[in-house]
């Protein structure tokens, strides 16, 4: 199922990585931010929304990163290059990520920066939308986001262009060790 998810997600231009441990995943993210020149200057910030991954992570490692913020508002997110959030499920047949995005921070970091890194517990990959229905009760989940690849448009002459209003890159980081709801 993971393989199907990966194929479908890559099919819509998402980048997919998989790690066994949280430490490996964290190292990847730190390196990624370095590559993207995350720093304490406007348009180069990184913003990371509260999530289980972060709670379990080695705080020392992340607090060292210059320009990485956990305290999020729209101005900061708008000036961020990288936004990081954890998602709750994935759907294999369409390569889709699903997130309970009731907390506004999760939406700010996944909509405003040009790159969104989505952390996904590997065990949370489900076959399809029908199998996801029982995982959620919309009545107490005010805002659910499904994300399938980066933001795209074809509104000018039907030419596919990536990155309109949302991120132009979607980087999915699957973590085996990360316990999910499933």
């Amino acid at each position: 199922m993971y393989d199907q998810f990966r194929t479908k997600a890559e099919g819509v231009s998402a980048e997919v990585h998989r790690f066994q441990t949280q430490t490996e995943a964290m190292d990847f993210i730190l390196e990624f931010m370095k590559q993207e020149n995350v720093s304490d200057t406007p348009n180069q910030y990184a913003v990371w929304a509260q999530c289980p991954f972060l709670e379990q992570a080695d705080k020392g490692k992340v607090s060292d990163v210059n320009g990485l913020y956990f305290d999020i508002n729209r101005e900061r997110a708008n000036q961020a290059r990288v936004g990081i959030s954890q998602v709750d499920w994935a759907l294999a047949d369409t390569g889709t990520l699903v997130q309970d995005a009731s907390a506004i921070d999760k939406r700010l970091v996944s909509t405003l920066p040009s790159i969104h890194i989505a952390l996904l517990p590997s065990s949370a990959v489900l076959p399809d939308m029908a199998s996801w229905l029982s995982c959620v009760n919309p009545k107490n989940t005010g805002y659910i986001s499904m994300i399938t690849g980066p933001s795209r448009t074809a509104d000018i002459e039907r030419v596919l262009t990536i990155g309109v209003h949302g991120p132009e890159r979607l980087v999915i980081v699957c973590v085996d060790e990360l316990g999910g709801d499933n």
Partner: protein
Amino acid sequence: MQQEFKQSIDKAIHNKNLTGALGKFSEAYKVNRAKAYEGIDFEALRSTIAERKGYAAAHVDELCATFKKNAEANGAKVFQTKDPAAVRDYILQVAKENNVKTVVKSKSMATEEIHLNPFLEKEGIDVGETDLGEWIIQLAGQTPSHMVMPAIHLTKEEVSDLFSKEIDERLTSDIPRLVKVAREQLREKFLQADMGISGANIAVAETGSIVIVTNEGNARLVTSLPKIHIAVVGIEKLVESFSDIVPILRALPRSATAQLLTSYVTMISGQTPNEEGSMKNLHIVLMDNRRTEMASDPVFKEAMQCIRCASCLNVCPIFRLVGGHVFGKVYTGGIGTILTAWYDEMKSSEDIQGLCIQCGACKDVCPGKIDIPGLIMEIRRRLVKEQGIPMLQKSIFAVVNNRRLFHSMLRAASVAGKPFTKGKFIRHLPLFLADLTDGRSLPAIAPKPFRDVFQKIKQPSLPEKAVFYAGCLIDFAYPEMGTAIVEILNKAGIEVVFPEKQTCCGAPARYNGAYEVAAKNAEDNIEALLEQSDATYVISACPTCTVALDHEFIQTFESIGKTENVPRAKELAAKTIDFSTLVKKLVDEGRLTLKEGQQLGKITYHDSCHLKRTLKADQPPRELLTKAGYEMEEMFECDTCCGMGGSYSLKLPEISGSILTRKLTNIKNTGAPLVAMDCPGCVMQIRGGMDQDGSDIAVCHTAELIAKRLKDD
């Protein structure tokens, strides 16, 4: 027809950008859509959607109430109204109470429908569309031409001009750069806006949720950044349960843009906190605007099953030629015609309903399983009922129904036109057929109609009988097709009976909305064709006629309440069979044998709309021709309409002509010297087109070809 309307068609057809963009798109769309649906049982999927949406339409009051209760329990304010003006006033009131200066909008057809933007702008509120296509349209001061791709009619050069003006900087037509500019410009607006207005693609009663699909991500920003969010939702978007979103979300992106899923699907089920901790001010407007009325109409309730995917536009041969603007300002294409008739008024659809050539291509792909051409016919019928048929048409129908008079008039016209006759064609026809000769030569009217030819044919006396229904074209223009059919059936041991009293099948009247005339035709034909009670079959070699005999007589009686005639109509339908299906059957049964070892060379086949889509008989003629020894070379878009459409080519000759040109090109590109088809109407259109073109490609009815290929015993 209004002059203005004719002019808009003319303008559209001559707009190379438009026809080029739409043409290219519709070609790619077919391939991509098929790919997106790979491994999915489309028929099963759309049956589920039709059932779920049909259920919702039948229980719309109940679902509105449940939705309101559940959404309000989650902190939304729900406002329900029948009146578009009340929707505008409500939004304005919320805006005023909260001192709103700027609004950002994500795509919403419902707000287009009620012309919300100009209304708010007049009140001094700045309204910004944020969907890229909608924003382009807004900058251009135009209306959307397509439900999913609003700016498809504009080129990148036009877009770069618009953007250059907006940001006061000369831009090139580099698309990625233009998209970047849009991102930057609109980002500021998002961050500043006091209110967000969105539509919704689905509203779930059970949970009080609204579901919004986008690719750009603008709806996520519209619903997240401003402190106030108003969603304007047409009540046809309601479904009963949360699980109903699954089939809709499976079909909508695939049908709309050939994607497995759009980049974003947003489900909002209540208030969520804003950045500083306050709760979102969330309003949901349930808008009726005649939808309840539509839902309780026995025929039009089907239109409530629409999920607004616009695939009916993408496959429509007329839409791809004229684009959206000819159809009007809000909803376009086939379904747009229907929605305009309701949400605006019946009269607004008077001209645009005539654009539909009834080819049925849209009906095949509609994920809501809506009989779009059928509903357009119903608009026609109701318009005619209200306004009567124009005098000219009335006199045409009177003539058409008097067979001998009709023939002698046509014949007189064709003889009168003699100086212009060349070979088998007449160049000019006086009378009402005059317009038909534009771009296409008409067949010379046969000196003797088939009804007279038939009397001279010597048939052996055979035990099995079949009734032959000729229809206008075989009777008057192509009697040789009739002769070929008699010959074939005789060889199979079937004697042909030709009831003298058979008359026009009523299709011309029906397609013009004159159902009373069509019903009279049906009655006369039923009586004539069932008289020979021992006949096994009623055979027709014109798919339009076959569909009339097989389906439409029944429907016509039902729509005008003459249900007492239905059983006889069904009796006729049970006996009716089209030429190729019957002959294929006779060959399979060994009652007819094709000559063996023939190498007849290349042939290509044109699918007539009614034969393929209503009668589903696209394979028998191909199998027969291949078996006879032809080498089938399929043409591009073999099942796209030829532009004939009965009297359509008479009323909208420019459109018909353009569609024909395309068809001729596709035929020529196969390199085959011969094209076969099963419809005398298509023969008339395509043969005439080839003749005007000076091409020597032969255009034949399958019957004419098969008659020559049978063994004598």
